[in-house]
């Protein structure tokens, strides 16, 4: 129902959204379920599989494992300690729309404010900011060096350098500077855009030695993310699967991205193997303070002669988080 309020073509949005959901379901190995669920007209597929609420049927409280010393996690027929039966709540989407309605009725929020927030994240901030930074860094090694090595008394100088660049550079797509005060809302470069640390993937000098470093960004408890440079988090970054595994099996994560996201393109896999064979250190950055991490990927050799404008269009969101490499 919220689709009708969207200023862009609602039908397109809906198709895009449905395609995304189908893709999501395929990716989590539920393609069969998705085909079955698709027959239920008008139902949100995600809600159907999300196990938001315990199973209503066969809810025999006395058989509750939690009541017999078992883990409450394993218990699908939960009974409250006071003996009451749990209320089964509607699907998540309905509850979100209900709380929105309630807060609008109480005049705590309003529809325009909510829409403004959504539009801001859908149309204004996004990975195109980060891509512009990466392309500029590739073409300006001195600037890149400053981003990577802030002075000791200004560990987050990168945010200030990026602010200067994005405020004073015209975005060729809009004819206006990338950033302005209207876009940053009085913050340095936008949401979560103060304590920025930038790392580069590839060979670099450290303590007089040349080492090949790859960086991977994660937030193991939730989804802290450099929103000012990348917009909203993709689903994989927010997933339990990624968060749990990124710190303990980062190489496995890279391999999974290389193999799945590119559907096994032989040439890509060869580039990936050549790249990972060079890695001396794989550094995982857990975003467990308000500091946000951002990665300048290694530029593929074949791109050396491309212009800054051509380069920025080839930089991917996943690469700026270190989850995948760039392929020529």
């Amino acid at each position, binding site marked *: 129902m*919220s689709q009708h309020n969207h200023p862009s073509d609602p039908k397109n949005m809906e198709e895009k959204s449905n395609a995304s959901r189908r*893709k*999501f379901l395929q990716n989590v*190995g539920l393609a069969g379920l998705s085909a079955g669920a698709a027959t239920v007209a008008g139902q949100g597929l*995600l809600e159907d599989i*999300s196990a*938001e609420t*315990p199973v209503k049927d066969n809810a025999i409280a006395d058989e509750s494992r*939690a009541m017999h010393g078992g*883990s409450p*996690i394993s218990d699908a027929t*939960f009974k*409250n300690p006071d003996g009451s039966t749990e209320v089964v*709540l*509607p699907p*998540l989407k309905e509850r*979100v729309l209900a*709380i*929105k*309605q*309630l*807060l609008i009725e*109480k005049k705590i929020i309003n529809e325009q*404010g*909510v*829409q403004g*927030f*959504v539009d801001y994240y*859908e149309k204004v901030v996004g990975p195109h900011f980060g891509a512009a930074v990466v392309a500029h860094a590739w073409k300006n090694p001195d600037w890149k060096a400053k981003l990577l090595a*802030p002075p000791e*008394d200004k*560990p987050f*100088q990168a945010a200030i350098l990026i602010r200067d660049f994005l405020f004073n550079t015209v975005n060729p797509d809009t004819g206006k500077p990338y950033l302005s005060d209207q876009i940053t809302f009085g913050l340095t470069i936008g949401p979560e855009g*103060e*304590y920025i640390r930038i790392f580069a993937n590839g060979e670099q000098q450290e303590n007089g030695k040349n080492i090949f470093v790859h960086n991977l960004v994660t937030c*193991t*408890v*939730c*989804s*802290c993310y450099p929103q000012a440079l990348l917009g909203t988090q*993709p*689903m*994989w970054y927010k997933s*339990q699967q990624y*968060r*749990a595994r990124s*710190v*303990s099996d980062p*190489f496995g*994560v890279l391999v999974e991205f290389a193999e799945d996201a590119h559907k096994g393109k032989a040439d890509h896999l060869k580039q990936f193997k050549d790249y990972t064979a060079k890695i*001396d250190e*794989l*550094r*995982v950055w*857990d975003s*467990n*303070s*308000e500091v946000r991490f951002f990665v300048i990927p290694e530029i593929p050799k074949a791109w050396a002669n491309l212009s800054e404008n051509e380069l920025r269009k080839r930089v*991917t969101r996943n690469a700026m988080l270190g*989850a995948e490499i760039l392929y020529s």
Partner: protein
Amino acid sequence: MEGPHYNAGWTGYGKIPFKDQPDDQGWLEEWEGQLGAIFATLSTIFEKGLKSGQPVPFWGLDAARWGRETMNPRDYMNRTYDALWLETLCLLITIYGDKLGVSVADLEARKITNAPAQKRAKAIREQAFKEAVPGVGRPDAKGLYQSAKYDPAKVGSIEKIGANPKFKVGDRVQCINQLSTGHTREYPYFRGKVGTVVTYYGLAEEKRNEKGQIEFQGVYYAPYPDIACRGLQKFYTPLYSVRFEGKDIWGEEFVDPRSVIYADVFEPYIKLA
């Protein structure tokens, strides 16, 4: 909170979903963005403060995170990402709804949450307000913490706290052990582990000009999460980037020897190794 809410390193979750989500797609569905908008709006209302001259309750990212940690482990594991945000919003209303003119009864009537879950979350919060916080100790009867080291009112200013970091770059440090019902950024996977301080992030007060715009100094200025999550006080501690070798955390037989983990560690979490 101890439990599945901190599951870094847990195995068996299977493949990472939707790795090829298009770059221009933020949310899968528009209501997910609307949920973010509601949280941002309420959080801003609290950040600005509702009443002057009193401890100002606030509900920032630390409180938001703790909100979902107070969920029953079963519910936490069963919920999707957005459902966790909704749950923390409901808890905000349960705790501070009277200041907004909306109550948990309103939420229950519209089947947005259920009262027992909120009652449970509230009881956990109350328990946490009796417990020690790393570096700060136990609170008084009102649940307020005292610190001669990290409370800017007692030290003089946030800058003074920042000017006296206990550790320097290169120090070998060991993370403390702790049990927390409250929220902490010392995640279980690196508790007790030894690492090296690689960066000190500095600390200063947030400065804004007359237009309300941040004049960023290039140093850290966010509060200590373990106290800030409680919404009543803001303490500040030096913050460091600490490097851990993957093998020191997970065991050398189990990880690629080239893997390294960097975590941001607040001063009370560490001691010299």
